[in-house]
């Protein structure tokens, strides 16, 4: 399913991640990541975000992430929340 309605979730506080979902600019799922731990966990953060989007059936979106050291469960929760907000 494509993301049509923009939505956000999370905050810029430390240990959190700010997720912005927008309609795709190209094809498929595009993730743009900014993170305070990008060198150590950049790939892992993208993986968790992509996995969560896919589990929720999202096939097309632009996902902007501004991460302040969130653990995997926080990333999943915030992405899931953004998707649900976009769909309602």
């Amino acid at each position, binding site marked *: 399913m494509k993301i049509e309605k923009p939505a956000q979730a999370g905050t810029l506080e430390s240990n959190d991640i700010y997720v912005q979902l927008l309609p795709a600019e190209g094809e498929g799922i595009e993730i743009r990541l900014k993170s305070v731990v990008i060198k150590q966990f950049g790939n892992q953060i993208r993986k968790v975000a992509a996995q969560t989007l896919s589990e929720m059936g999202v096939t097309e979106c632009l996902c902007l992430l501004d991460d302040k050291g*969130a653990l995997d469960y926080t990333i999943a*929760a915030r992405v899931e*929340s953004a998707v649900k907000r976009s769909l309602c």
Partner: protein
Amino acid sequence: MLRRTSLFIPGNNPAMLLSANILGADSVIFDLEDAVALNQKDSARMLVKKAITTFDFSGIEVLVRINPVSSPFWKDDLREIIEAEPDGLVIPKATKEDVIAIEALIEELEEKYNVSKKVSFLLIAESAYGVEMIAETLGCSKRITGVLLGAEDLTADMEVVRRVDGEEIDYARKRVVMACKAFRVQAMDTPYTDVDNFDGLLADTEKAKALGYTAKAVINPRQIDYVHQVFAPTHDEIDYALAILQEKERAFTEGIGVFSYQGKMVDQPIILRAEKIVAMARKLGLIT
């Protein structure tokens, strides 16, 4: 499970959720109600659910304060949280009708998710109606394990000013603890909101203990040790309890039914209390 302190943790705050299991409280209350903005209720419940299943809470009681039945959020709170199998729910502004409604939905959800244990309820008595009707409310569900007095909302509802000496909540405190004792559930005292005043915290907790409260909610981790100090049996209490139990053993072997210690008759209630004190002292590592 021992519950002397329950620490409120704002449900939408990952930094605080991270340290929930190491701050030393006996029980943590993940708050979906007052600590979460109206437009973040949806995010918060997802975050709390995942936090419960991510961190190791062994030895700590996990509670979730859902939104009140009068709000549009409580059903979604339950639908999200029950799957994570918290130990209990904290029900704000609890009335008999609320508890019955919540229990009905929970029964459905617990079956749906095939949970391994049933959630308990900690009710908050924080309105004049809630306090006045407490006995009726306690009778309506077997899941209730305790009542937390919520003085801030209560005094707002009563339209009186909250005072340092607690005079305005004196009746409410006594009524709630009496109802709890009657129904054999725990009475938990209201949080002490002056977080930098530890002398005041100690005095307030001692007062609650004297009335029969066995726990106090805390809103700042620095309050935890002080509250534990008050609810721990003192050395004198422990020594006395050990002596009573020793005398009981001696009386038993000698075939004596009722005995006295230090000039006072020792009957069953005193023995039971001594056993509780010794059990708690053991649990706290005060005796081996």
